[in-house]
């Protein structure tokens, strides 16, 4: 086969793959939206689910629980996650200890979420007597997401050119001043992207929260209240009731939230880039 024909074939193949992927994407989203939107209504979003076989009610408590859970998880996650990333990127010497830490982080990032769920169940729900609660769920999610946040934050920090640190030090800044005033601000877009991605995972997580949040359909009133997130609610609707349309609608809400999160991530990244490259 001549080089030109090989090129045409490869191009066709690549185009084809792209088209198929996009088609699948649209199919899934389209199907869910199509079947779910009929059940959409103002009431749906703002009334609480009433339980029962027919799945009465809406998803208001699920939305609120999801938001609470996301905020709680992220606020606990921030300092250890970014702190560990700063340590690994800026301070750690290249010795056996650091290598073990990195290996641990990488391994944990690959562990299935249900394992974290069981761990959370044993430690937070049972041993520490938090029972099924937002606190237990959030702490378990922190364990799940910590490796990911550390990794993405470390990447963001490493992406800051070495010359910026050198320039800061050469001007008489201390190591910490250089990190706080120069490296962190430069790495911020990357770190924020990482945080938003974590939020996306929180919204979508099911297995882990199944065994830590419990199944209460009520509005959570404190850190120790149980509840269900949108994805859990979808699961319960699909498995325990006949309200298939409502499950689809919940799915549609989830997809829309994910789309918003992704758009937000892209927008923030883009804005930071232009701000840094072209001035305010």
């Amino acid at each position, binding site marked *: 086969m001549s080089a030109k024909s090989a090129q045409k074939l490869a191009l066709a193949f690549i185009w084809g793959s792209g088209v198929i992927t996009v088609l699948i994407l649209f199919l899934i989203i389209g199907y869910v939206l199509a079947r779910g939107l009929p059940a959409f209504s103002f009431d749906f979003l703002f009334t609480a689910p009433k339980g029962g076989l027919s799945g009465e009610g809406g998803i208001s408590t699920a939305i609120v629980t999801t938001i609470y859970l996301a905020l709680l998880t992220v606020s606990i996650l921030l300092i250890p996650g970014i702190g560990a990333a700063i340590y690994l990127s800026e301070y750690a010497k290249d010795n056996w200890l650091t290598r073990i830490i990195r290996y641990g982080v990488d391994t944990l990032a690959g562990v299935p979420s249900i394992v974290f769920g069981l761990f959370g169940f044993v430690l937070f729900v049972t041993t520490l007597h938090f029972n099924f609660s937002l606190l237990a769920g959030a702490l378990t999610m922190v364990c799940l997401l910590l490796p990911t946040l550390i990794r993405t934050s470390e990447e963001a920090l490493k992406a800051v050119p070495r010359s910026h640190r050198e320039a800061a030090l050469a001007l008489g800044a201390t190591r910490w001043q250089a990190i706080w005033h120069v490296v962190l601000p430069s790495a911020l877009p990357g770190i924020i992207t990482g945080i938003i991605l974590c939020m996306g995972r929180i919204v979508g997580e099911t297995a882990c929260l199944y065994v830590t949040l419990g199944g209460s359909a009520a509005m959570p009133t404190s850190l120790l209240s149980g509840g269900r997130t949108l994805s859990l609610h979808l699961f319960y609707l699909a498995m325990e009731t006949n309200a298939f349309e409502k499950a689809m609608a919940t799915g549609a809400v989830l997809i829309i939230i994910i789309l918003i999160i992704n758009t937000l991530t892209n927008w923030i990244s883009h804005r930071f880039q232009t701000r840094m490259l072209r*001035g305010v």
Partner: protein
Amino acid sequence: MDPKIETKQLNFYYGKLHAVKNVTLNIREHQITALIGPSGCGKSTFLRTLNRMNDIIPGARVEGEVLLDKQNIYERSVDVVELRKRVGMVFQQPNPFPKSVYENVAFGPKMLGLSHKINLDEEVEKSLRAAALWDEVKDHMDKSGLALSGGQQQRLCIARVLAVEPEVILMDEPCSALDPISTLKIEELMRDLTKNYTIVIVTHNMLQAARVSDLTGFFLLGELVEYNRTVDIFSRPGDKRTEDYITGRFG
């Protein structure tokens, strides 16, 4: 007159690599000293020992003394932050922070805690004027430092160093990433700066060293081969190795 910086039998090691060998050199105040030599001859490494920038490299080891105004900067009691305020550095690749022009220049004084004692706006303007950049940026102080041209960025980096009011300015191949006209502007700037500062420049451009400096030191394989007035080094060098390098007959 006492030299501003003196090195006495300075040796520097990167782990096992003996990068700077027994260098004894005097840097004179208010003059430009150029360090020339082929790639990898240790001139940049030597330069970085003068403000202890090599401290951040793991495995770095220094033997011998570096005296700034007769005081050894490698003594334990020396405050590195204070040292780097007195001995500033400009790097090969212009590296303004991803902040505004104003914030870039104000960075040093802020870090050193001087923002309460001095009028920051005045200091920023003074430094930008001294770096021959004020006229070009005075209406764009909020613009990102990265939005400037290469030559302007390098002058911004120079202004940044001037803002902490150093005594010595070290320049590591400051023009090698710039076009010829920016290079000449910065060379002219260097001559103006000698009124108030002492300058040490590392360059692999011999003609630049000849144009700009008062004294020149030739480094080869970590050793200081010859050190003399620039006109003497370039018209009648004493060592054959210097002559071979300068006339391009190396290798």
